[in-house]
């Protein structure tokens, strides 16, 4: 008996109606991702990468097909339950960081923990730990506008992991950074995957970033056209 994959997509389809025409950025995608895997998603602009990522992150819903993550069929959850699932199960890292501008780094990282009943001392401990882990603790009282892109992304990653979700998704997390910052962010993500065992799905245009992944998926026009596993033996 084989254990079920952590992420299981079956005929996963997302279509948008735009006036009379229907756009289908994701078409009948089948995909299995085991727990702890690191998957890079590549493909030309408009190929459906973000659409797939949003479905996996539970901030969008499939039009057809099924999406089961950690044994939960996301398509069957109510909006409120899906929100609760996101809070517990997934951290999202955006290309443009998406920090809340009126909140400090510390307060941004604290946000996911505000959804949990926990002593404030414990909340503080976890936020401090996440900031420490992403190497941005010294900037905890800075506002996003006072941080560089690389620093903002560290805060965003701290926010994504503070609630300790098993799954991280990242949409071009280094797309807006210079080479040096990009490399630093990549090595941080790799550590989260290797050392903390986070399952990581990352959209990227950059082959050097993709090279860190154990597996690279190529999307084209909403379909999976290639599935490279150069480092497959590393995953176990």
């Amino acid at each position, binding site marked *: 008996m084989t254990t079920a994959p952590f992420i299981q997509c079956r005929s996963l389809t997302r279509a948008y109606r735009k006036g009379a025409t229907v756009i289908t950025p994701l078409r009948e995608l089948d995909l299995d991702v085991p727990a702890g895997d690191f998957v890079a998603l590549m493909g030309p602009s408009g190929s459906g990468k973000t659409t797939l990522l949003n479905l996996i992150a539970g901030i969008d819903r499939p039009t057809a097909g099924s999406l089961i993550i950690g044994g939960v069929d996301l398509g069957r959850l109510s*909006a409120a339950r899906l*929100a*609760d699932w*996101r*809070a517990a199960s997934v951290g999202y890292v955006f290309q443009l960081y*998406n920090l809340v501008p*009126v*909140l400090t780094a510390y307060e941004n990282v604290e*946000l996911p923990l*505000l959804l949990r009943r926990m002593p404030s001392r414990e909340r503080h401990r976890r936020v401090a730990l996440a900031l420490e882990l992403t190497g941005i603790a010294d900037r905890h009282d800075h506002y996003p506008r006072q941080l560089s892109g690389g620093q903002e992304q560290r805060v965003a990653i701290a926010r994504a992991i503070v609630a300790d979700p098993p799954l991280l998704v990242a949409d071009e997390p280094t797309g807006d950074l210079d080479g040096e910052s990009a490399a630093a962010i990549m090595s941080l993500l790799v550590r989260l995957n290797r050392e903390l065992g986070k399952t990581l799905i990352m959209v990227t245009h950059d082959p050097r970033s993709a090279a860190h992944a154990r597996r690279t998926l190529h999307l084209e026009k909403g379909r999976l056209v290639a599935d490279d596993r150069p480092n497959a033996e590393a995953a176990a």
Partner: protein
Amino acid sequence: MINPRHLPLVFKQVVRHRTRTLLTVGGVAAAMFLFCAVQAMQHAVARATDGRADETTLVVYRENRFCPFTSRLPEHYERRIVAIPHVRSVVPLKIVVNNCRAGLDVITFRGVPEESVESLGLRILEGSLEAWRARGDAALVGRSLAARRGLSVGQSFDAAGVTVTVAGIVDSDAPQDQSVAYVHLPFLQRAARGGGQGIVTQFNVKVDEARHLEAVARAIDAEFRDDQEPTYTSPETAFIARAAHDVVEIVGFTRWLGWACLAAVLGLVANAIVLSVQDRVKEHAILQTLGFRSGLIAALIVLESILLSLLGGAAGAGAAAGVLAWGHFALTVEGVNIAVAADPLAAATGVGLAALLGVAAGLFPAWRASRRPIAQCFRAV
């Protein structure tokens, strides 16, 4: 669903969007200030002019006259009024004002016979009755008037061509007494232009029981019907309502001003919230991505709206209460005074209404924000 630990998020939004907050709160405060001032005037008029079941005071005026300058009754009517059954006491009053039109700072002199002053029920706060008795030009000044004009015992002041010396500051349960200066009747009859020995403006008549009020009024008017100066007698509240008719009408109209203020508050807060929600489409999508339920987002938006509205409401109501308390305003017209006092209940009502308007202003933007599909929000910006 909303929890105390979420509240700091709302405070931070309000505090850290400082310009928006100051502008909105300032606007709301101005509107609520006006609303509370209007409410205070409404209450003042209602208090002064709504007939009460326990009312025992009648005012006897010259028939078909509406102004203290033209109501001229012979002082000797007093003896005939006293003789009417159920009349407990009669005080002849000569009234002189420095301004016959409506105003907020009018000085009203009331000339009373020395022996009647005891029956007015005045409480002496400063000075003494003896001092008043001792001087022909002495005045007992109502508390509000003294505060408004900064008058103290021993000081002289003049108005309407009459110069008096303050012998005491007085208070009483009768609202009229707050804003008048009581002087000796013969002194005022001599001093005032168009004065005249033996002439008074009105008689204030106390009846033994409230249920006899109407009958006594009719009996008085019947008594003088065939005299040279016939009378018109009415309960004091009705008299004030008649004398201050124009002001009462205008104040009644300001009710609409009050409603308009509330509408302005609603518009201001709704505008601020709609704009900020539009500005924060992405921010709300981020929160939802982190696992905030859409209902929680909506609740946070409504709370922010309530907080803005409450801050403005409290500031406006507080300012109105302060101004009214320090200003001791009285609407005076034709010699009757309607004291406009700070009203804690009106202030509380204002703050409560502000909170309600906050809810109303926040609901629609909150509902809209909570319905937006999350993924769309990231693409839209």
